[in-house]
């Protein structure tokens, strides 16, 4: 069914392309990417995904005949540069904006609200979800870090009980990046662990620039760790995974889990054998799990002589995030509304179960909740690739039950 839908959409866009081959006034989208900064390793494929999606839409007739003009620059993960570029692009007439990091998105929140620019960032910090209050124009296109953590704990706990263990013996240690990004999911994880009756919960920051984490692992061991959850980028997580395996002697001792910024191909490459068995809370379907939504990105990349596996799941992430934003613009135009921030925001807020062909869970925004979804599936590293380990775990559904 979904496949037909995608084919239908492509056919429609193609027809639109034939009729009104990009005659309209361009629609400007602003973006800041981290291509050469500290998160450049994952920022580059994300940027490629955003650019590829925009090019694909343009090659297929644009949005209702209007081409997209992407104004984008590398900002090196520098907050001040992001501010400059944001202001520059807004003054050049962008109607929506694709951001990147937690720091710069937070720094821009007030400006975004004031300029009324719908904003999708690659930061999934729950503090950005405040549509009625301080962040009316920020949309979270993926499961928040807190929800990722909670889903990961639910999944780990279920397996733990399944194996005949007692929840009171389960001891979770969260290793996190030493920054607001790192600490973001800790409170929600802790609250859930306590409510669920899990034996212990401890969070340990990973010092920046460390060459090993043995001291931190020692601390976790003293705590009696059974499960580790990492909220860090893949380099920090991979080093930790190697250290954990060295310390405990095998992958079997401790259940190791990563939230989305370390559960990727880079982690597997860097951690090598130590990655085996790692669980990943990934809102975007890994490239090694086939879904319909990957068909077009694969074709686009093939034309460039590349594969989706090479481009990595962060390519998919950029692609899907842009797809959501572009869909908001398209629906605004189709409703005959003027292309303004408030109109696009209102249209996005009516989006219900928008399908990206399985690239991510269906997207639903409401005026009260700018989190696209509270669901994700848990994946697991098996023979060096990510395979699906659970069905979609949906916190919205679980909480209404």
């Amino acid at each position, binding site marked *: 069914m979904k496949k037909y839908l995608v084919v239908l959409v492509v056919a429609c866009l193609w027809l639109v392309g034939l009729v009104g081959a990009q005659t309209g006034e361009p629609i400007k989208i602003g973006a800041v*990417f981290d*291509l*050469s900064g500290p998160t*450049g390793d994952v920022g*580059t494929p994300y*940027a*490629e995904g955003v*650019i*590829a999606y925009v*090019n694909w839409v343009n090659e297929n007739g644009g949005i209702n005949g209007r081409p997209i003009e992407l104004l984008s*620059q*590398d900002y*090196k*993960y*520098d*907050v*001040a*540069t992001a*501010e*400059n570029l944001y*202001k*520059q692009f807004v*003054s050049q007439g962008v109607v929506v904006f694709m951001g990147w990091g*937690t*720091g*710069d998105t*937070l*720094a*821009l*929140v*007030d*400006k975004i609200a*004031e300029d009324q620019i719908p904003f999708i960032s690659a930061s999934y*910090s729950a*503090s950005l979800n*405040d549509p009625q*209050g*301080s962040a009316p124009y920020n949309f979270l296109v993926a499961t928040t870090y807190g929800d990722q953590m909670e889903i990961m704990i639910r999944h780990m706990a279920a397996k733990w009980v399944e194996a005949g263990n007692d929840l009171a013996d389960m001891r979770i240690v969260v290793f996190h990046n*030493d*920054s*607001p990004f790192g600490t*973001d999911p800790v409170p929600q994880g802790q609250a859930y662990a306590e409510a669920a009756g899990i034996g212990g919960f401890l969070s340990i920051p990973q010092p920046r620039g460390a060459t090993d984490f043995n001291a931190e692992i020692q601390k976790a061991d003293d705590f009696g760790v059974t499960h580790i959850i990492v909220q860090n980028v893949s380099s920090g997580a991979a080093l930790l995974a190697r250290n954990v395996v060295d310390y405990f002697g095998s992958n079997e001792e401790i259940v190791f889990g990563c939230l989305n910024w370390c559960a990727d191909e880079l982690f597997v490459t860097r951690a090598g054998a130590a990655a085996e068995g790692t669980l990943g809370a990934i809102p975007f379907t890994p490239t090694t799990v086939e879904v319909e939504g990957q068909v077009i990105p694969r074709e686009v990349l093939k034309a*460039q002589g590349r594969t989706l596996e090479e481009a990595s799941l962060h390519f998919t992430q950029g692609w899907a995030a842009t797809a959501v934003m572009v869909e908001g613009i398209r629906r605004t135009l189709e409703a005959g509304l003027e292309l303004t921030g408030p109109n696009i925001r209102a249209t996005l807020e009516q989006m219900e179960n928008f399908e990206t062909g399985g690239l991510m869970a269906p997207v639903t925004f409401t005026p009260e909740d700018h989190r696209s979804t509270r669901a994700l599936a848990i994946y697991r590293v098996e023979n060096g690739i990510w395979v699906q380990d659970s069905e979609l775990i949906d916190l919205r559904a679980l909480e209404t039950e």
Partner: protein
Amino acid sequence: MATQSGIYHQTYESDMQLRPTTAQRVRMVLVIAFVLVLPLLVSQNEVRIVNKVMIAAIGAIGLNILVGYTGQISLGQGAFLAVGAYGCGLLMVYFQVPWGLALMAGALITAVVGGLFGLPSLRLKGLYLAVATLAAQQIVEWIIIRWDPIDGTIDGKATDALRIPSNFLFGNSAWRLNDNEYAFYYFVFVVLAIVVIGSVNLFRTHYGRAFIAIRDQDIAAEVMGVNLFYYKVLAFAVSSFLVGLAGGLTTIHSTAISFERFTIDVSIAYLAMIIVGGLGSISGAIYGAIFIEILPEILRSIGQALVQNRLVSDQVFVTVLPFVQQGTFGLLIILMLIVEPEGIRKLWSNIKDYFRLWPFSY
């Protein structure tokens, strides 16, 4: 002018003048005229970049007082900027202090903190002192990241970035400092002018001369009766005051601040500014700030022009261009230092000397 073989002063007043020659006075008038006219010629975004340059110039002058004039190396610039920025911001957010007062208070707090971290300077020199100031950087960053109220809270939940209320110049709603770049431009220029005049004059007083004496030969200075401990800590305090001022200006210029603006990278960038511009020189600090802040913007706009005119592919834009830009930036800094190790200031005076001595330069 050209026939004179020197500058003669016949009165004490003329001897004490800051700008004794006509050429200097003409230049000053030209500079002021340029500053007044500039915003009319460029876009709001370009004014924004100039504003950042002026804030950086104030911070660089502060650092140059410590490093260039007093010879005390500091890697804690980012931390002191943060103290000024958060000092100013927290006073506004939690105590509703008017912005002007908060700005000054932030700078004063930074002066105290700077003086405190300057205490080890009596016992430590050179690289050892650099490492001690590095500790300041780490400690301040750690406090900002870990202590939730510092980044502001909404309903008891940490927000990870301190939201700065809007501030208006002379209470005029059209002159919002974190939005109207023109208003901020004239304001920050006045601040910069006061800082420049104050700093230049500082080195005509016995305080400034003591700083320079400590830099040149601390033992000789002590023998001459310069109280090393007092003047070193004073240099830290004065320097930090200006750095804190720059931090506070950053706050007033922004809608939100977070620790990511004040990392060790910032400390190093400021050191680069004063080294490229010219150590131990006020104008050098300004040239350095211009160089380090504007060059990446120029490289970025070249990159943008290449992409928009389809001269490079998207693939090159994403994977190659950023590194070419960074590489070029680094190369230009190295080139600058090879051409003139004493900085842009020396380069400028070389050019002036060439014309002054022409055609008989030897």
